[in-house]
């Protein structure tokens, strides 16, 4: 097609344009949107309770892990002497200020880092896992 032919589109087809602007839309079948929404709500229905149950189970599991690792971390804090070091550091400040680097190194060695990390991660996992429950409660309806 030539450029001239393209440029002449508007004028050369004014008759067809006029007719097309008078084209009437066919009537939309009644209940079309209701049928679509019924199908989408059916599609979401089985998934929603499943997601809630998963969120609940995930949250419970993470909470149990947090409790176990928290208990273990606490026990290790006592056995390793880290708790005693912390108490001394807080109660007798001059001990800390006398040799702060040595104090921190000793504390770093005594702290049960693995258990503390496990506890932190479990708490974070519990918060993330139960987030859908909070959204459902706020919304009052499934999506």
């Amino acid at each position, binding site marked *: 097609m030539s450029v001239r032919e393209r440029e002449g589109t508007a004028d050369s087809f004014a008759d067809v344009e006029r007719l097309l602007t008078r084209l009437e*839309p066919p009537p939309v079948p009644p209940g079309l949107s209701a049928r679509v929404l019924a199908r989408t709500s059916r599609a979401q229905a089985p998934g929603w309770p499943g997601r809630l149950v998963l969120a609940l189970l995930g949250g419970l599991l993470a909470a149990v892990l947090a409790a176990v690792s928290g208990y273990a971390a606490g026990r290790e804090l006592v056995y390793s002497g880290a708790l005693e070091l912390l108490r001394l550091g807080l109660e007798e400040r001059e001990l800390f200020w006398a040799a702060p680097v040595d104090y921190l190194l000793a504390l770093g060695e005594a702290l049960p880092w693995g258990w503390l990390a496990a506890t932190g991660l479990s708490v974070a996992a519990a918060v993330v896992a139960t987030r859908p429950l909070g959204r459902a409660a706020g919304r009052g309806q499934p999506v």
Partner: protein
Amino acid sequence: MGASRLPAPVGSLALASEECMAAPVAALGVSDEWLAARVQQGDAAAFEALVERYQAPLYHFAYRVLGGAADAEDATQETLIQVYHALPRARLDQPLRPWIFRIARNRCLDVLKRRRAIPLSWLGSGDGEPPLADAVSSSPLPEEVAERADLQRLLTAAIAALAPPYREVVALRYTADLSVAEIAAVLEAPENTVKIRLHRAKAALRAALRGLLADETGGTR
């Protein structure tokens, strides 16, 4: 109903002001992208508003492309359900309308493929133009065509006689009211390709209308 409560059709949509909250979302000037973002946040009422907004244009488009009410209704339903499933992963930095019509076009092409109504070579991006069978007539149609009582029947028949690639651009432009740029986005083709296709479609429509009128004249003799 209090100002803090929403009317039934819009459910839990949270809008900026209480005045906004008191009106149905479908009637408000909220953008498609805003509604889509609400759907992504899990708002079922926002999807309902999108369905209300798009059911008619999608049905009109599918009706013109497929040429039948039953197929058009099925294609519209399938399109909206696919939109529902795809929206959570949709990119909202791009306009939603061409994306929705692209889905509708694909559903219609599936129906046409099942009918074997189009060669596979026509399903591409539109770089190669489909052949135009009828000779292009350059003289305009008689003025009295626009005054005919059966104008809608004539136009419907003429559009149905177009090859699918021309039928779809006519449907997108004149029944779904998309701009050339939006049609280009739907077809994933350059705007010039769309302009050429529209030009050829109008030429073919004129030829088809002339043919229909000639058949009638011949039939009444």
